[in-house]
């Protein structure tokens, strides 16, 4: 059998499980960071430093009963979490996390380190991310409960609003990199200015980066934009009625989405796997490092900032973020036009 094909399959599996693990890791990290920020210890009993805590959670959820409100809409109630999780995983499949490699000669030719090869990769990420909202909205609607419905409404409005800024900030980078393929975008950031400043787009696109991060947080419904699941107001919002694995799926989706957003951010702004001191084939370590940094930033933010008010969210999204993103895009285009890319 063709080794490349094997390698591809292997790659798919690896990525899938890596994402699962990352979600687990995130759960643990979340608890730990939260604890530390609140001067607690967080999970300590389960395994070393509570490392096994996420698995304990998973097992607990496994053995929970699958509840469904009688008034809920059967089909959609089941589909919703699946959509969420599926979208979350699917989005990652076009995100490269390392330079093309032939695994030390095991393969006849180099294969790029991502699951699916598309020349409009970045748009795919965008598209699939935008599909994720359906899971939440449907969950909210189908569970036929006020809180969930409100959560769903909020989610849809919020995501639509912030998708625009999200896309704008992406577009700025695309204009800069003059390509749609994440691979090439990353390669466009190799090398250094003056020998020591890495050619990352974040230095050319500080505003774009900021906008992207903010919009990304809103897209993944993380604090301080976690309105769909605002515990205090909506008692967990769209997944109020969910339990057991379907509940777990939403969580999985949320964390995987975070990972995806961070990974894309890394590729777009932080030079992907390019970094000093490491041989090219170890570049993915740099990649993971950067992703981890951004993820930590996520957690940090969540446990530092209070939640906005909903109207504030909308005001900010439409009246601040979107104009800023648009101007940034225009400025970038002008700059590229002027300096000739």
């Amino acid at each position: 059998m063709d080794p490349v094909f094997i390698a591809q399959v292997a790659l798919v599996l690896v990525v899938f499980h890596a994402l699962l693990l990352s979600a687990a890791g995130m759960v643990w990290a979340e608890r730990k960071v939260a604890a530390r920020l609140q001067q607690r210890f967080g999970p300590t009993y389960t395994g070393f430093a509570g490392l096994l805590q996420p698995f304990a959670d998973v097992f607990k959820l496994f053995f929970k009963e699958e509840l469904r409100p009688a008034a809920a809409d059967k089909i959609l109630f089941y589909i919703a979490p699946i959509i969420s999780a599926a979208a979350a995983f699917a989005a990652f499949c076009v995100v490269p996390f390392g330079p093309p490699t032939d695994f030390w000669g095991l393969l006849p030719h180099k294969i790029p380190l991502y699951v699916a090869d598309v020349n409009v990769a970045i748009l795919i990420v965008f598209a699939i991310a935008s599909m994720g909202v359906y899971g939440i909205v449907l969950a909210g609607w189908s569970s036929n409960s006020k809180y969930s419905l409100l959560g769903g409404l909020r989610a849809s409005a919020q995501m639509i609003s912030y998708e625009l800024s999200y896309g704008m900030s992406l577009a700025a980078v695309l204009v800069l990199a003059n390509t749609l393929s994440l691979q090439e975008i990353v390669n466009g950031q190799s090398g250094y200015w003056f020998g020591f400043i890495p050619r990352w787009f974040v230095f050319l696109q500080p505003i774009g980066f900021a906008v992207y991060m903010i919009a990304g947080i809103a897209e993944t419904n993380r604090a301080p934009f976690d309105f769909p699941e605002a515990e205090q107001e909506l008692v967990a919002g769209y997944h109020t009625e969910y339990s057991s694995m379907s509940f777990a799926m939403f969580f999985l989706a949320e964390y995987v989405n975070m990972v995806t957003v961070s990974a894309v951010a890394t590729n777009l702004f932080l030079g992907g796997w390019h970094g000093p001191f490491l041989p090219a084939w170890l570049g993915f370590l740099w990649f993971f490092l950067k992703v981890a940094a951004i993820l930590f930033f996520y957690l940090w933010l969540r446990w530092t900032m209070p939640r906005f008010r909903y109207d504030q969210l909308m005001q900010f999204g439409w009246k601040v973020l979107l104009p800023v993103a648009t101007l940034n895009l225009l400025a970038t285009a002008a700059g590229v036009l002027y300096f000739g890319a």
Partner: protein
Amino acid sequence: MALETILFYVLGTLAVGSSLLVIGQRNPVYSVMLLIASFAALAGIYVLLDAPFTAVTQIIVYAGAIMVLFLFVVMLLNVGQEDAAEYDRSHPFNRPFVRRFGALLGIVFVAELAWAVWHVSTRQPAAIAAAAPGSVSSVREIGRVLFTDYAFPFEATSLLILVALVGAVVLARQDAE
């Protein structure tokens, strides 16, 4: 059978089936979801047609934005089943003559479409695959043509969007009196 053919039939059936269901049942939320499915199928067909960019745009714009809007409205108004109760006999469509005429029109319409397609097939026997493949898949090319030959329509579109935006805001605002 070529992979392309299989995919075409699968996706095509999917699109047609879900579209039928869209108009076939009464729960708007289901309609919306099924329509999204149909759009996804169409996106797949676009990929078959070497138009990945259009496919992605289809997803982003239709599935990602427009449909969410529909869903949002459905949920906002929270209308359940469309009930047969509000069904006024007085409506002109319920006069037997009108109904017959409508049916006739429908048949004529279908016949005409069929004729048109058949006519095309007689003149354009060339297979799609025969046309230079990949020639239309380049995003760069699309952008170039869009911003040169179609520059004016593009600008006009921006105006349209603006008008729609304002109009939507004005219409949907709670008339504060």
